[in-house]
C-alpha cells in the first residue's frame, strides 16, 4: 500500500470518484441488497430496493454470489445506461461490495483498435481461404488438362488409324476404276472426289466383240457409306452380276439394278446411274438413265445433250427405264459426267449449269491441254480456292 498522508489519499479518492463515476452496491450473505450509493443513475441502476434480493434487481449479479474469489473483476461490462464499467467485487465481513468504475472512454478506444485488428484478420483469413480454393481449382484444372491431353492423344491415334483406313479405302476405290484406253477408240477420265471418299464411280468394258458398255454411278452423299455403295454398284456392272439381264440392253440393266439396290436395304442411300452401250460397227449408242445428268455429244461442231428420263436407283420398286438409241456421226466425242462436273457454286453464290459445261466443251482448250483438264480447270476457277463441294467425274470417249 502507498504510505500517503490522509490529505493526499483523500484527494486521490476524490479524483477517482470524479473521473470514474464510482457507484457501489453492498449485498449480505442472504444475497439481499443492503446498501447502494454513488453514481448509480450514471449506470442506469435506479429504483433499487434495499432489502430485496440483489440478483432480481441487478441481472449481472445472477450466479456471481457467493464470491468464489476476492477481489474479482469483470472488465468492460455494458451497463443499462449504455456506459461501460469495470465491475469490482470485494468480500468484506459477511457482505460483498460491488464497485462500478466507468471505463467507457478506454472501452471505446480499445474497441476501435480491436475492430481494425479483427477486420484485418478476417480479411487475411478470407484471403487464405480464397488462395487455398484457387490452388485447389488450379490443381483440378491441371488434372483435367492432363486427362484432356491423354484423351487428345487417344483421339489422335484413332484419327490417324481411321485416316489410314480411309486412305486404303480411297486407294481401293481408285484401283477398281478402269485405266484410260486408246484403241480402238480413246477413253479418258478425270475423277476428283470432294472428300477422300466420294459417291461417284464409273466403268467401261467390252461386253463382247461388238458392244462396249460405259456407265457412271453417283450415290447421294459422300463418305464411307456412299463409297461402299458406289463401288458395289460399279462392281455389279463390271462383273455383269445381275440375274436374267442382257447387259447390252440399258433399260434392263437399270431395272435390274433398281431391284438389287433398294434404298431401304442400303442405308437409305439412292443413286443416279447412266448406262450406255456403243456398237462401233454401226455407230449406234443405246442408253438409259436413272436420274442422271444427260451426257453431251460433240459432233460436226455441234454440242447436244443425250436426253432421257428415269427415276433414281433404289427409290421406286419395279421402276421402268426408257431406252434411247441414237447414231453418232463420227468423228464424235461423248462426255459422260456426274452433276459435280458442272453444278459448281461460284464465290458470288451463283451456280454453273449444264449449258456452261456445254460451252466449255465447245471451246478449244489451250494448246497442249487436254479437254478434260480444261473442264476441271474451268470448274476449279469457277469455284475458287478449296475443295469442290461435290465429286467431279467426267469420262470422254473420242470416237
Amino acid at each position, binding site marked *: 500500500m502507498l504510505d500517503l498522508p490522509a490529505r493526499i489519499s483523500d484527494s486521490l479518492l476524490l479524483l477517482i470518484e470524479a473521473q470514474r463515476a464510482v457507484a457501489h452496491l453492498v449485498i449480505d450473505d442472504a444475497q439481499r441488497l443492503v446498501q447502494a450509493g454513488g453514481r448509480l443513475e450514471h449506470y442506469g441502476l435506479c429504483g433499487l430496493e434495499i432489502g430485496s434480493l440483489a*440478483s432480481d434487481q441487478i*441481472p449481472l449479479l445472477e450466479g456471481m454470489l457467493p464470491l468464489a474469489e476476492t477481489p474479482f473483476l469483470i472488465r468492460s461490462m*455494458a451497463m443499462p445506461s449504455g456506459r461501460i464499467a469495470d465491475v469490482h467485487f470485494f468480500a468484506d465481513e459477511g457482505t460483498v461490495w460491488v464497485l462500478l468504475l466507468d471505463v467507457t472512454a478506454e472501452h471505446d478506444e*480499445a474497441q476501435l483498435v480491436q475492430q481494425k485488428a479483427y477486420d484485418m484478420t478476417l480479411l487475411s483469413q478470407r484471403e487464405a481461404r480464397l488462395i487455398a480454393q484457387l490452388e485447389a481449382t488450379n490443381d483440378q484444372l491441371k488434372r483435367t488438362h492432363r486427362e484432356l491431353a491423354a484423351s487428345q492423344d487417344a483421339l489422335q491415334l484413332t484419327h490417324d488409324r481411321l485416316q489410314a483406313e480411309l486412305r486404303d479405302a480411297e486407294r481401293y476405290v481408285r484401283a477398281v476404276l478402269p485405266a484410260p484406253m486408246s484403241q480402238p477408240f480413246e477413253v479418258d477420265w478425270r475423277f476428283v472426289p470432294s472428300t477422300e471418299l466420294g459417291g461417284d464411280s464409273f466403268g467401261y468394258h467390252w461386253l463382247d466383240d461388238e458392244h462396249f458398255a460405259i456407265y457412271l454411278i453417283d450415290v447421294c452423299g459422300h463418305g464411307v457409306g456412299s463409297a461402299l455403295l458406289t463401288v458395289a454398284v460399279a462392281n455389279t456392272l463390271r462383273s455383269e452380276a445381275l440375274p436374267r439381264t442382257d447387259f447390252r440392253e440399258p433399260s434392263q440393266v437399270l431395272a435390274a439394278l433398281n431391284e438389287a439396290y433398294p434404298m431401304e436395304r442400303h442405308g437409305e442411300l439412292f443413286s443416279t446411274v447412266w448406262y450406255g452401250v456403243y456398237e462401233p460397227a454401226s455407230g449406234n449408242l443405246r442408253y438409259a438413265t436413272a436420274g442422271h445428268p444427260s451426257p453431251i455429244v460433240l459432233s460436226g461442231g455441234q454440242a447436244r445433250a443425250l436426253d432421257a428420263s428415269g427415276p433414281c436407283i433404289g427409290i421406286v420398286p419395279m421402276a421402268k427405264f426408257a431406252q434411247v438409241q441414237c447414231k453418232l456421226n463420227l468423228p464424235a466425242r461423248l462426255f459422260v459426267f456426274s452433276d459435280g462436273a458442272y453444278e459448281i457454286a461460284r464465290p458470288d453464290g451463283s451456280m454453273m449449269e449444264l449449258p456452261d459445261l456445254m460451252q466449255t466443251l465447245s471451246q478449244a482448250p489451250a494448246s497442249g491441254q487436254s479437254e478434260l483438264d480444261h473442264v476441271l480447270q474451268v470448274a476449279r476457277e469457277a469455284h475458287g480456292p478449296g475443295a469442290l463441294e461435290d465429286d467431279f467425274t467426267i469420262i470422254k470417249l473420242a470416237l
Partner: protein
Amino acid sequence: MLQKKICLLGAFGVGKTSLVRRYVDTIFSDTYLTTVGVKIDKKVTAVAGEEVALIIWDIAGEDAVSAVRVSYLRGAAGYLLVVDGTRPETLETAASIQGRITAEIGAAPFIALLNKADLVDDWALAPERLQQLEAEGWRFRRTSAKTGDAVNESFAELAALVAK
C-alpha cells in the same frame, strides 16, 4: 421467477452478438461491430409452461492474443458455443474453449451453434470433424442470425436444458 445465467462463447466474429440481438430484439445488422468486455441481456421465456428469465452474457470473442475468461462463467447454468460455418478454425476455437470450461468449471449443458447457415456457398466445416465432436457428446444446430433460422429454437432448447 426462475432466473438462469447463460453465456455465449466462441471465436471473434462468429456472430454471438448478432444471435443475441436476433433473439432478444428480433433484429439483424450486416455491420460487424466487435464486442469488448461483456454485455448482459435479459429475456423471459417459457419452459414447460413455467416462465424462466434468461440472463444472457454475451462475452467478447476469443482471438490469438486474448483467451475467454472462463471465470466469467461462474454461476452459469449452461452456454452456447458459437462457430462460424464459413471459418473452420472457429470450430477448433470452440473446441478449445469447451475443453477449458470443462476443466475449470466442470460439465455444464451446452449447444454448439453453426452460425451463418445462410452463406451456403462458403460453408467450410468438415463433416468428419463434426461427427467426431458429436461422438464426444456435442449437439449441433445450424443457425443464421441473418435469417433467424433456428435461433429461437436454440435458445429455447438451452433454456429447457438449464431449467431442468
